[in-house]
C-alpha cells in the first residue's frame, strides 16, 4: 500500500521534535513533583509523596505569584493591543517600500539582547537617568521621579516595549488581508471612517488581534528578567521562584509542582481566550475563508 503523502505530512518531523522536547520534560516534571528530597545528601529520593503539591496548594505565596504573572500577562496584552493597533493601522496605510522600512524599525529592539535592553532602560529611567535629567532641566520637576525605576510601572512599561512588535505584526497582516472594497462598501452605505473601522475593519482583524494577545500574554506572563532586574522589590515572579527552587534551594519537587501549576493556569487562560475569539463573528468569517 502506498502511503498518501500530503503537505500536512511535512509537519511530522517538527511535531515529533515538539513531542520529545515538550511532552517528555512535562512527564519528567510530573514525576519529579511527587518525589522527595534528602537535604543532607542533596539528592532526590524517588517516592510517591504529596508533600510538594501540599506546599504548593496551601502556601498562598505560590497562588499569589501565579496570579501576578497572569495579571502582568493580561495587563501587558491589553496595553499592547491599544498601543499596537494604531501602529499597525499606520504601517498598513504606508506605500509598499515604506512598509518594509517600517517593519525593520519595528523589529529593531529584538535585534539587541534582552540584557542590553534592560540596562539601557536603567540608564533611561534611573534617578540620574535621561528622563529625570531632562525633566529637571526643563524645570517640570525639582526632584527625580522615583516611580520610574524598580516599580511595577517599570515592569509594565518595559514588558510593553519588548512585546509590542508581537502585537503589531499580526494585526498589520490582518489589516492587509481585509478587502479594501469592504471599507469602500461601508463608506458607500453611509458609514463615516470611524464607523467603517469599528464595523468592518476591527471585526475582520480580530484573528490578528488575538494572535497578538496570545503572543504578548505568553511572553509577558512568562518573563523573568524584566521583572527581576527592573521591578525592584515587586519583581519576584513564578519564574524567578522556580529558578531559585531548582537552583539554590534544591527543592526540585516543589519547583516541578510550581512549574506545572503555572503552565496549567496559563493554558487555561489561553483556552478561555481562544474560546472567546472563536465566538466573534469576524474571526469566524476570516477563519472559514469568507474574505476571499
Amino acid at each position, binding site marked *: 500500500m502506498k502511503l498518501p503523502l500530503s503537505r500536512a505530512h511535512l509537519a511530522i518531523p517538527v511535531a515529533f521534535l515538539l513531542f520529545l522536547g515538550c511532552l517528555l520534560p512535562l512527564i519528567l516534571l510530573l514525576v519529579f513533583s511527587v518525589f522527595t528530597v534528602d537535604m543532607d545528601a542533596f539528592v532526590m529520593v524517588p517516592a510517591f509523596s504529596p508533600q510538594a503539591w501540599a506546599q504548593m496548594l496551601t502556601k498562598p505565596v505560590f497562588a499569589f505569584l501565579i496570579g501576578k504573572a497572569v495579571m502582568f500577562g493580561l495587563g501587558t496584552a491589553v496595553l499592547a493591543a491599544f498601543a499596537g493597533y494604531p501602529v499597525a493601522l499606520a504601517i498598513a496605510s504606508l506605500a509598499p517600500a515604506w512598509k518594509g522600512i517600517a517593519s525593520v524599525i519595528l523589529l529593531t529592539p529584538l535585534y539587541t539582547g534582552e540584557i542590553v535592553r534592560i540596562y539601557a532602560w536603567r540608564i533611561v529611567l534611573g534617578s540620574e537617568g535621561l528622563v529625570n535629567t531632562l525633566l529637571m532641566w526643563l524645570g517640570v520637576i525639582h526632584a527625580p521621579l522615583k516611580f520610574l525605576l524598580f516599580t511595577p510601572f517599570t515592569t509594565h512599561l518595559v514588558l510593553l516595549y519588548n512585546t509590542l512588535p508581537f502585537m503589531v505584526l499580526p494585526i498589520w497582516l490582518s489589516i492587509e488581508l481585509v*478587502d479594501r*472594497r*469592504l471599507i*469602500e*462598501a*461601508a*463608506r*458607500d*452605505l*453611509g*458609514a*463615516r471612517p470611524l*464607523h467603517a473601522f469599528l*464595523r*468592518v475593519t476591527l*471585526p*475582520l482583524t480580530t484573528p490578528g488581534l488575538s494572535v497578538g494577545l496570545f503572543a504578548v500574554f505568553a511572553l509577558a506572563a512568562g518573563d523573568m528578567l524584566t521583572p527581576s532586574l527592573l521591578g525592584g522589590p515587586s519583581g519576584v515572579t513564578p519564574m524567578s521562584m522556580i529558578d531559585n527552587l531548582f537552583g539554590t534551594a534544591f527543592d526540585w519537587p516543589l519547583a516541578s509542582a510550581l512549574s506545572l501549576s503555572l503552565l496549567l493556569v496559563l493554558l487555561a487562560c489561553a483556552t478561555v481566550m481562544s474560546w472567546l475569539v472563536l465566538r466573534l*463573528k*469576524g474571526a*469566524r*468569517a*476570516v477563519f*472559514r*475563508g*469568507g*474574505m476571499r
Partner: protein
Amino acid sequence: MHGALPVTETMSPPPLLMARGLVKAYGSSRAVDGVDLDIPERAFTTFLGPSGCGKTTILRMIAGFEKPDGGSLVLDGRSLIDVPPERRPVNTVFQNYALFPHLTVFENVAFSLTLRRRSPDPAPRVMRALETVHMSEFGNRYPHQLSGGQQQRVAVARAMVAEPHLLLLDEPLSALDRKMRSHLQIELKDLQRRLGIAFVYVTHDQEEAFALSDVVVVMNRGRIVQRADPATLYARPANGFVADFIGSATLVAGTVMSGSAGQGMASMETALGIIQAPVVEGLSPGDPALLVLRPEHLALRREGPDRHFPAEWPGIVRHVVYQGSSYMIEAECAGILLRLSALMPPRIGESVAIGLDPARAFITRPGE
C-alpha cells in the same frame, strides 16, 4: 399642485447628474480625459468600453472613492466634489459584491439603516428589499453560503435599501455564468423600471449594455466616443471604433466623393466600387471614411446575379461557422473579407455573389 409647475420644469427637465470637463490622471496617463456628461433621471445609463477606457474610474468618482483632478460633478444641483462617499445620495453594487463576510444577509442589507443612533427598526425595510430581489428566505444566511447570483441579489438589495437617487453598478454580472447573467439582466431592468430611480451601469459587454440600457455611453481611452440609445449606436456609429466595438461588422475603408448634407446621404469610393449610403454628420468630400456593413445587411446569392440588390459583387466563400440558428460566413470580394449570416451554408471555396442594400449601410469616420 398641478399647473403650478415652474416654466423650466415643463421644458426638458434638468439632468440628475451633470459632469463637465471631468479629468482623472494616474501619473502621466489620463484615465478620464475631459468628460462632459448628463445623466437623466429615471433612466438606465450604461458606460460601455474596453477595459482601461475609464468607465470604472468615472463610476468611482461619482461614488466618491476617487477625487477628480479637474472638472465638476453636480448631482441634484449640488456639487459632489468635496462630499465624502458616505454623504452622497448614491449607492454602489460592487463588481465582486463586497458583501460583509461577518454579517448575515439581513445584517448586510440593514447596514446602512443602522448607522445612526436611534434609527427606527430596519426590519420592515430590509424585508421589503429582500423580497424585491427574491431573497427573503435567506436573511439568516452568511454570504459564503450563497451562490454568485444570490450574492449579487443581496448586493443590489443592500445598495437600494437606502433609497439612493442614483444606483451605480460596476460590472455586477461579470462573475456569473452566461445563463444566470441573462436571467439577472432581465431582473435588473425590471427592478429599475419599478423603482424608477436612475441606474448607472458599467460593462464591457455590448450585448449586456443593449439588453439593459436606455442610453449607452461608449468610451475609449478616457473619452466619450458616442452617447446614444442602443438602436442609434448600432445603426449610426459615430466612428470606426464604435462600429467595430458594437456588434459584428465589416468595415471597408474609402474616400467620401460627394455628399448632400441635408439628406444625410453621401457617395463613397471603396474597393467594392462607388456606394451611396447614409452618412455621419460632418464628413466632407475628400475625407477618408469607413463603410459599415452589418452581417444582416448583406445577402448571399448562390445561383447567378440577383438584380434585386442595387450593389452586388462576386466572391469566394472562405469561412463558414455554425452558430445554431444560422451560419456566419466570410466571403472574399475584391480582396475584402465580408461577414454575413445565412440560413443555408455554402461550401468553402464556392463562388457566390454578395448583395447589399446600400440604404442600410452607413458611412462613418475612421478610427478612434
